[in-house]
């Protein structure tokens, strides 16, 4: 009798057990704010939640719930996923863990063993996972894409996307769209030829590839002198956004190579430093907009595209908001790529402004020189890859900002396979408040999404590599490189609460529900910290 009962349950389960994260769930992720189903929370990349238990007047009651310590001292840049009480996260170098989101205890861990000779410009980092049904997807710094079983952590499939010996790596969180997993490659400092690829989620079979640097015969190849396209870089190391209605995938593309010496790659160098809009079914390019033609400062357009529908200059439009590493804030029409607005949100000395098509008007003398030339923004940009946030209630676009200059040098662009191909080096990529003469400062800024005008600023002594998340209850969470995690008032920028976590905050905080109660998780140093309201 008992056996029959169990068998019946198993059979029923086998037939009716719903897939854990269906595509339909991701499509409607904003309807279930208790979970965090995809890298940016939703396909629109708002980093905003309708959860409102944590408010301006009780955020001071936040207390530490648990800490997860990674087994590596690498930077913790990963943003977790949370699905029905289970947190899935990556931690350096390429481990995956499933945690009980209530306690931080581990269900399982998967370890991807790396070859010893992996070399990456900026740390052996990983930024997170994609998920579809009961599978998790992770890119690795040795160029693989893995699919894991979400329940057991066992490997389902493993494909080689690119050869790490040539400088390719996967550091971004894959994006799941329909039945496909989409990834791009890092390696923009190694003379790679960047690309985005889509794989069948079930099998790992490649479906399409889009080269971010067009080859001979393809439109855009004429923007590269001679054969410079072959080592043109154009990495794609951050997750894109998706508009299901327009069926368009939006992705930010990285710098051209070599970074600081453009003499060997005369031309605009498409599609580096651009946003590309692709058909997710075929990988075909629908439109592009290049923020920094012929970049010689390393201004990757590697930021999260923020998609929203709202009135712009009196007319309802499908917009894309973009706070770019080059120091300008942009509003584009995401149906066509039409430039609508551009305005500097930080000090910019490499350009005098933007023309009426959004093309930068370069300032004479604003380029790297052999002797070194001090230019704003810094080599890490006026902002970078960490998530901005858009709050529909305030109409404000929030982003982390660096007010800091770099002395840019131009040197020899020497290419050797697998080594850096950058054409000299900017000295001091990360300033130190105590040891550097002119360390600049960091800030969280709130821009009017329609005009780009700054509404408030929260100034910090140090810089920030933290993303942001805004809540419907007007609390804005972020952190900084000093190790502080804090909450600001979305409307005024007033500091509401802070805690010193002791290590650099270098991921984007998320919020979700466990047992119906709102939690906030953020990484600092090599650990993930989770806070909830005191009971």
């Amino acid at each position, binding site marked *: 009798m008992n056996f029959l009962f169990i068998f019946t349950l198993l059979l029923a389960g086998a037939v009716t057990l719903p897939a854990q994260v269906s595509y339909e769930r991701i499509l409607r992720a904003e309807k279930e704010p208790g979970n965090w189903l995809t890298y940016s929370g939703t396909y629109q990349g708002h980093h905003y939640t309708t959860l409102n238990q944590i408010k301006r007047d009780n955020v001071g009651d936040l207390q530490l719930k648990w800490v997860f310590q990674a087994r590596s*001292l690498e930077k913790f840049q990963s943003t977790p996923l949370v699905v029905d009480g289970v947190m899935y996260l990556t931690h350096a170098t390429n481990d995956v863990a499933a945690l009980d989101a209530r306690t931080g205890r581990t269900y399982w861990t998967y370890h991807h063993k790396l070859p*010893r*000779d*992996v*070399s*990456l410009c900026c740390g052996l980092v990983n930024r997170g996972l994609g998920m579809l049904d009961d599978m998790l997807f992770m890119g690795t710094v040795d160029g693989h894409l893995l699919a894991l079983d979400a329940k057991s952590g066992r490997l389902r499939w493993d494909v080689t996307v690119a050869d790490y*010996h040539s400088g390719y790596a996967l550091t971004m969180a894959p994006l799941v769209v329909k039945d496909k997993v989409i990834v791009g490659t890092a390696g923009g400092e190694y003379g790679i030829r960047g690309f985005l690829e889509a794989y069948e989620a079930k099998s790992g079979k490649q479906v399409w590839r889009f080269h971010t640097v067009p080859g001979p015969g393809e439109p855009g190849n004429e923007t590269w002198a001679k054969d410079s396209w072959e080592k043109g870089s154009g990495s794609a190391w951050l997750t894109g956004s998706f508009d299901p209605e327009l069926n368009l995938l939006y992705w930010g593309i990285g710098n051209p190579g070599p970074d600081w010496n453009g003499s060997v790659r005369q031309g605009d160098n498409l599609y580096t430093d651009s946003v590309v809009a692709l058909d997710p079914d075929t990988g075909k390019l629908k439109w592009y907009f290049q923020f920094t033609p012929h970049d010689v400062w390393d201004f990757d357009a590697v930021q999260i595209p923020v998609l929203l529908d709202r009135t712009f200059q009196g007319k309802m439009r499908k917009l894309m908001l973009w706070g770019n590493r080059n120091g300008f804030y942009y509003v584009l029409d995401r149906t066509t790529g039409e430039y609508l607005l551009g305005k500097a949100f930080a000090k910019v000395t490499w350009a005098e402004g933007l023309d009426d098509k959004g093309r930068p008007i370069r300032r004479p003398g604003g380029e790297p020189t*052999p*002797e070194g030339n001090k230019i704003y923004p810094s080599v890490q940009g006026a902002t970078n890859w960490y998530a901005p946030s858009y709050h529909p209630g305030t109409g404000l676009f929030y982003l982390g900002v660096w007010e800091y200059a770099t002395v840019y*040098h131009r*040197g*020899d*662009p*020497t290419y*050797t*396979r*697998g*080594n*850096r*191909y*950058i*054409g*000299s*080096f*900017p*000295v*001091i*990529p*990360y300033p130190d*408040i*105590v*040891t*550097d*003469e002119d360390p600049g400062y960091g800030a969280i800024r709130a821009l009017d999404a329609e005009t780009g005008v700054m509404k408030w600023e929260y*100034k*910090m*002594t*140090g810089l920030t590599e933290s993303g942001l998340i805004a809540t419907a209850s007007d609390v804005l969470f972020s952190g*900084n490189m*000093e190790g*502080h995690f804090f909450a600001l008032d979305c409307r005024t920028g007033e500091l509401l609460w*802070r805690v010193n976590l002791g290590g650099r905050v270098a991921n984007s905080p998320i919020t979700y529900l466990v047992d119906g109660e709102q939690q906030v998780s953020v990484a600092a140093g090599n650990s993930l910290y989770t806070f909830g309201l005191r009971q």
Partner: protein
Amino acid sequence: LSLATAFISDLRCPLKLAITLFLLTVSAPAHLAQEGSTTNKSNSSDDIVAGSRIFQSHCLGCHGRGGTGGRGPDLTRSELRYGNSDQELTGVIGEGIPGTEMPFFFFNGRQLQQIVAFVQSLRQSSPRIQVKGSAENGRVLFRGKGGCLKCHQVNGEGGRLGPDLNQVGARRSPDHLKTSLLEPNQYISPVDRTVHVVTRGGKGLSGIRLNEDTYSLQILGADENLVSVMKSDITKYKLDDNSLMPSYKGVFSEKELDDLVAFLYSLRQKEARP
């Protein structure tokens, strides 16, 4: 001496100028034999020039122009933490240093040797500088007339408000040392800057700024005590552009200055190795 003409063509670049001057002043490559090792077969002047080009594009970001350090260590020192021989340097560059920011590189054998030759050339250039004073006389002046121990530490003795001088000879040139004695405000390392604050209670505090973030400030006070101040309690904050160090212009004779510089330049205490 067969110098690479490409280098001579652009002497505006400080690194190129330094290399060119160095190559002009020593009879390379014979003088480039390294301590404990003569294994490098690619150490001709052309190899050094080739190595410097690779250094510029791959190493300069961390080790600074001229290899004098930055985010990474100063490579011109006579003692390097992970080894001084060609073989050891080749291993460090070719394999990286696990647990540090020093990455693995894919250079071929010849390229590795060229970089090693260049790094060794930087290290060879530094100790060749001759000073004219007497280090022993300088030591007496340092401890006596100069009163330097009041603020500086050497061999575990002395105050803490000024920079520790145990390795100053490995880090600073004689000219730089002399300038620091005569015009101490000309160069102040940011880590040695003095901060003056006034708290809400009207209390004034001065000292060396050890650390600072958005919310607080950590100071080594004038009485050599560690002090923490919350920024919310500060009404006035000033980071001083002047050094606490007095000028010794007119205090020491020219010969005494040379002796003091000779003493300071002799301070090359080895770093403790784990």
